[in-house]
């Protein structure tokens, strides 16, 4: 596959973990990137949209993405889903597709409701996210350290597509940076 850089964006920065994730996705021939946006994913989303080798598809709800990537893989395309932790709850029954059909699946999840969260409405689902994923049959990798993100995503892709397994990578709120709309109070 060609490794042409998208022209509309600056060159990727190898020291930025978000750009490193993008390069890993390219190296693993990821063709479809589906997402419900999160600010923590925005740089990666922009890069995927600018990449002529990728379909970047915005969803109306995360459960669509589980079905979408199942269809993509049936047609020979590898994909990943980007979402935030609140979206995991929307996916629970749809995750049965993955186990019933033994399908590979990778999702990169930005965490809310943990490290210094200002919004209590995010806390319940954020705290339930790892267990909800495990109960749904997915393998869960968690990353706190920026230097470990790319290798964790790469490991997840190998586990998923070599072994037909569902894998979630949790990008912790400490890694992403806490969100605060309260004026810093």
């Amino acid at each position, binding site marked *: 596959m060609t490794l042409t850089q998208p022209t509309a964006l600056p060159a990727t920065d190898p020291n930025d973990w978000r750009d490193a994730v993008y390069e890993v996705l390219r190296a693993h021939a990821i063709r479809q990137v589906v997402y419900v946006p999160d600010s923590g994913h925005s740089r990666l989303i922009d890069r995927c949209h600018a990449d002529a080798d990728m*379909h970047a*598809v*915005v969803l109306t709800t995360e459960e*669509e993405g589980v079905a*979408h990537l*199942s*269809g993509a*893989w049936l047609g020979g395309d590898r994909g990943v889903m980007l979402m935030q932790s609140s979206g995991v709850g929307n996916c629970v029954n749809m995750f049965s*597709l993955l186990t019933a059909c033994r399908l590979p699946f990778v999702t990169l999840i930005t965490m809310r409701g943990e490290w210094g969260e200002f919004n209590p409405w995010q806390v319940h689902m954020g705290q339930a996210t790892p267990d909800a994923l495990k109960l749904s049959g997915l393998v869960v990798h968690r990353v706190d350290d920026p230097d470990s993100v790319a290798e964790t995503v790469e490991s997840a892709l190998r586990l998923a597509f070599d072994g037909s397994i569902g894998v979630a990578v949790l990008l912790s709120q400490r890694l992403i940076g806490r969100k605060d709309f309260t004026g810093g109070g």
Partner: protein
Amino acid sequence: MSTSPQLDRRAAVACLLADRRDLLVVSGLGSATYDCAAAGDDPRNFYLWGAMGAAAPLALGLALAQPDKPVLGITGDGEMLMGLGSLATIGAQAPANLAIVVLDNEAYGETGAQPTATAHGADLTAIARACGMNAVDEITEMAGVEALAARLHAGGGPLFAAIKIAPGEAERVLPSRDGAYLRSRFREAVLGQAP
């Protein structure tokens, strides 16, 4: 209230699949899956037995991966209503090779024929059209089904069609429920490789 349902679901699906050529099919759980099996099992049918709401978005992912082959997502009104948001996603992506066909009997047929929202006037064709899909007018005659069958192979999607079918259950024709088998044989048939 829309036109009263009248077409025979098995005859309609058999007509859509009679000359399928390289058509790839995703069927929604329940009667749509049985209808596709009754029309003749084929490894290029991916039958859903659960994951309600998955038929349309799964067909979209497949259509983007296989742009040179026509893809048909066929499902019931209840299953479509659970995944309505996917029509907006499909309209935005606009794959020319995708068609979504809803067999609309205005009822949840598997669970005792409770009325769906289409029985109360929800208009799936208008919704799909408003999402940017190329929606044909609601189909109430077999001639419309025959015209639709030809359009499945003509590009020009994303196509949407609701076929008004008669209430009542047809004999259950059950394909394999083994999802791993269904996905492996589909990949082998379409990609020529065992996963």
